[in-house]
Every structure is written in C-alpha cells, then in structure tokens.
C-alpha cells in the first residue's frame, strides 16, 4: 500500500546536523583553520568536514528518509537501518575529526584514526544508500526528482570512498606515487563528487518537488528539466572518467574536468530556469517565509557558479575558495535552513494534529511559526554569507570571522524558532495546551506507522 508516514529518525538527523553547523561556525568565528592556516591544512579540514558531512549530509539524508517516499509514492524500505546510518556517520565523523586533529598536532597518535573514521562514514553512507535505493527500486516509476536523488546517492558513495582513500594517504597507510597523485589531483574530484554530485544533485531533485508542492505550481516537464538531468549525468560521467584516469595513470585529466564543468554549468542554468518558471507559475500569490528565503539560496547558487567560472578563468585561487563558500554555506545551507523552517513545522503539525483532522478545529501549519521573528535570521544569514565570500576574495581574515559570527547568530536564532515550532509555543490560544511532542523523536503513534 502506498503511503508516507512520519520518518522516526529524521528529526534526530536534523538535530545532529544543526549541532555540527553551529560547531563549524563557532570554529570559523574564532579564526580556526582558513585563512589562518592553508586551505588544505588539517584545521581547515575539520571545519570543512563538519559542514559537508556533519551538517549537509546528515541534513540531506534525514530529509530524504522523510521525503523520498513522497517523491516515489512508496513506503520507506528498511526503516530500521536509519538509526544505524546516523550512528555510523556521527561516530565516523568524530574519529575523522580527531584524526585531522592528530595531524594538526593534538597530543596522542590520533592521525591513525583517519582511515577508521573514513571507513565508518563509508559504512554509514552505504547503509543510508541501501535504504534509499531500495525504496527507489520498489517504486513503479522514477519521476525526474527521484532520478536526481538516485544519481546523487551514487555520487555520495564515490565521494566517501575517495575520501576514505585520501584519509588513508594522510594517515600514511598508503604511500608512493599514487598517494602523491591522489593528494595533488584527487581533492578537487573528492569535493566535486561530494558538494556537486551528492549534495547539489540531491538538493536539486528534492527542491523540484518541494518547491512545486509548497507554492502550488504545476510540476516541471519538458526540455529544461531534461536538460538539467542530462547535464548532471554527463558531468558525473566525465568526473568518473577523470577519476579512472587518475587511478590508472596517476595524472589529472584537465580536458575532461573542463567538459564536466561545462555540462554542470548548463545543468545549473537549466535548473535555475526551471525554478524561475515554478515561481512564476505558482497559484499562491503570497510567498511564505521559507519560499522567499529559498530565493536567497537559489541566488547564492547562481552567484557561486558565476564566481567559480570567473575565478577559474582568472586563475584566482581565492575566488575558488569564495565560490565553494558561497555554494556550501549560501546555496546548500541556505536552502537547508529555509526548508527546515517549513519541514519542522509541517512534521510537528502532522504528528500532533493529524488524528484531529476533520473532527476538531486544527490550526494551520503556519500557526506553528511566527515568520516575523525568523525573517531577520534569514536576511542576516544570507548577507553575512556574501560578506564572508567577499572577505575571502579580499583576504580580510577578521572580516571573515565577523561574517561567520553573524551567520552563527542567525543560525542560533533560526534553531530557536525551530525549537519553538516543535514545542507548539507559538500556537494561538485554543491549542496552546495541546500535549507537546518530544523534541527530536516523533511519538510512537502506532496508527501512523502501520
């Protein structure tokens, strides 16, 4: 029977993810890592992996556990693997970060932990991919958004396996010419598979459906979404080929990478065109806050890609770092925060009021939140992200710290709003006394899990 239920572990994924984001921003605000160390320094790697794995990947996996069944109209397969996925990734991340700490000179032989942390993270991603790919395989049709997710999951697996190999090199387990080549030329591939193939593709796939659902616009069909999908397929295939060349010959493949970038840019342009068409074709004239905040994230995607093209053309290393900052903290994180603002309220509403629907008056989902209080959070967050990127380009170390502190303040404000929505604090009077749900776990309401 086709039905979607509340995914029990999604909120735990979200909670861990938000903690990782706040930790990373605290480190950035205190000037830990870049620009006080180099981009590839272990301190910077700690911040980067807190964001990429701790925040973005856990956020995306938690969201997919809830929304992939909605995308394909099938119940989630093997839901019992979800807590194991979370435990493996979180513990693997802790080991990985300690390993980087060892390289940064923390006491003890911590760097030996790197491959173990990497292996645990690989295991966690495989468990998550088993749940999600099995769910996809059981669906009778594969709508376009689900196609994006399927490709993104494959890319995630490549990214973490490549990452674990890199971790083994850094820990000194693997040596020789291959190790040198991997560290020199493998890092951009690792980042492209992770930030591009995995996180961006999953975000694109999920947003195709969520945007059309939240602003009541007809789903996108035709040339543009197909161009976006073919573009990402071509880009990923070329990335895989480049990885093959690197493994076989210990050498990079610049032409392949250039073509992959072209295909990716075409895909992003088509995708952004689709998003504009969705917003224009919406049937609800007034946008709720999460959908206007999402516009900020889409703008960051455009800005990030333009910055990347410019800095590659101008051979500006700082520009590349700024572009990655815009894409990770502006596009992916901004979209994540905007969607969380709605998803947390929606899931809480569903958990608390679904049994009352049609029998007693129920509040609207919007009644769980106060948009006026969260609005400054989103405005400050996006402005601070642009400020941070500018600080990177113009080498303003203290300005970057200030931007990160502003981002942190905005995120703390938003997390407090998520918490209030979850605790039903902002509901109007008739429902204020409604029993409150548990913060990070849905209630064991058997009816919804049958």
């Amino acid at each position: 029977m086709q039905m979607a239920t509340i995914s029990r572990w999604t909120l735990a994924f979200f909670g861990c993810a938000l903690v990782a984001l706040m930790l990373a921003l605290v480190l950035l605000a205190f000037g830990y890592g870049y620009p006080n160390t180099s981009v590839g320094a272990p301190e910077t790697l700690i911040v980067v992996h807190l964001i990429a794995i701790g925040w973005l990947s856990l956020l995306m996996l938690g969201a997919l556990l809830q929304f992939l069944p909605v995308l394909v109209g099938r119940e989630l397969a093997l839901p019992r693997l979800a807590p194991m996925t979370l435990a493996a990734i979180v513990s693997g991340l802790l080991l990985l970060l300690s390993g980087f700490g060892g390289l940064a000179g923390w006491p003890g032989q911590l760097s030996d932990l790197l491959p173990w942390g990497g292996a645990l993270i690989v295991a966690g991603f495989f468990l998550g991919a088993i749940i999600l790919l099995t769910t996809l395989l059981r669906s009778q049709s594969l709508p376009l958004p689900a196609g994006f997710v399927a490709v993104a999951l494959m890319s995630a697996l490549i990214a973490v396996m490549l990452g674990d190999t890199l971790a083994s090199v850094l820990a000194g387990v693997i040596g020789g010419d291959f190790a040198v080549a991997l560290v020199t030329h493998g890092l951009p591939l690792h980042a492209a598979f992770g930030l591009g193939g995995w996180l961006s593709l999953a975000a694109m796939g999920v947003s195709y459906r969520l945007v059309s659902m939240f602003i009541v616009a007809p789903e996108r069909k035709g040339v543009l979404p197909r161009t976006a999908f073919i573009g990402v397929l071509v880009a990923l295939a070329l990335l895989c080929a480049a990885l093959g060349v690197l493994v076989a010959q210990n050498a990079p493949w610049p032409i392949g990478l250039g073509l992959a970038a072209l295909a990716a840019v075409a895909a992003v342009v088509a995708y952004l065109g689709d998003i504009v068409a969705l917003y224009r074709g919406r049937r609800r004239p007034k946008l709720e806050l999460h959908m206007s905040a999402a516009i900020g994230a889409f703008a960051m995607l455009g800005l990030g890609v333009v910055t990347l093209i410019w800095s590659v053309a101008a051979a500006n290393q700082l520009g590349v770092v700024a572009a990655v900052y815009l894409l990770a903290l502006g596009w992916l994180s901004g979209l994540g925060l905007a969607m969380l603002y709605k998803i947390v309220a929606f899931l809480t509403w569903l958990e608390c009021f679904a049994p009352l629907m049609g029998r007693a008056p129920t509040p609207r989902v919007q009644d769980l939140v106060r948009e006026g209080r969260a609005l400054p959070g989103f405005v400050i967050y996006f402005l601070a992200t642009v400020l941070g990127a500018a600080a990177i380009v113009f080498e303003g170390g203290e300005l970057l710290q200030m931007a990160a502190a502003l981002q942190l303040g905005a995120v703390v404000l938003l997390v407090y709003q998520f918490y209030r929505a979850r605790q039903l604090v902002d509901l109007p009077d008739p429902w204020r006394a409604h029993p409150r749900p548990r913060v990070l776990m849905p209630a064991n309401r058997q009816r919804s899990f049958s």
Partner: protein
Amino acid sequence: MTEPYELDVRPLLRNGGEPFGAIMGAVGNLAPGQRLRLLATFRPEPLFKVMEAKGFSYSAKPIEGGDWEVLFSPEDVGGTSPAALARDNDPDNWPDPTHYLDCTDMDPPEPMVQILAQLERMPEGEVLFALLGREPVFLYPELQARGHSWVGDFDADGTAFRLMVRAGGASS
C-alpha cells in the same frame, strides 16, 4: 428469501466455451440478497476468489456424473466477514460518489483536512470523489486508521490526482 438464480454452464463448457462472461452477467442481474446456483463440469476454484471479492461466500458439492453444484450467497451489507470486507474494499462494488471536492488549488495540508472533515460527515458506505494536485501520501495512514477505503490514480496527462474514498464505519 428469494429462490436462488440457477445458471447451468455445463453445455457451454462441453462445447469448449468460456463461461466467465455469462456468470458475471448473471451475478450482475441478481436481486439484492439473491443467491446464485451454478452448475459446472468441474470445481471452479478460480471463480471462488472472484466471487469472494464481490462479497459472496460459497458452498460446493459434487453431483452425479462428476459435475459440481456451487451455491454463492451474498454476505450481509456492513458485515465484518472477510468476504464482506473484501467487497467493501473493491471499488467495483462502490456506489457512485455523492460528494465532490476540488483540492487542486489548496496547499498542504489543507486537502487532507477538507477530505477528512467531509468523510466525518458522511454515513458509512457513501463515496467521496476528490481532485488533488498531487498524490496525498500523508493522507493514507489517516484514512486507514479511520477505517476508510480508497483508490486513486493520476489523470491521463499526469497533472491531477483522482481519489475516491468510501466512508468506513470502524473509525478510531
């Protein structure tokens, strides 16, 4: 109780014919509560499942010459026997919808609220037809918990989802 309607498909079978259409035609012409006596040259196992889905129980006995006589009896409407439940869950047996809802311009979760509110006002057995912008996957657990049965699909060009819900009685 009215006399069972008798249908002898043995001549048809002996001539190599396919009796299914004739049987279904006879079932469709039964008066409410009327039984069907079927005479066949073998024990018609596959038919039992079909008839169960339509809400009939059966008793089969061999008669002279190796032939079989099967008596199909309709279950009480609203009964809780497996046959009655199966019939209620089969949309072919539902009456025409008496209530219509267009939810295509509503944003989630408004369609769920409207559909469930309408179902609360409907007596058991009545059917609601709703048009939605997408498949209401979060609605199904609630329909199931409240004892409603439903069937739905996308229209030909895939832009609207058509949902039929038969109001159930065993809500929780």
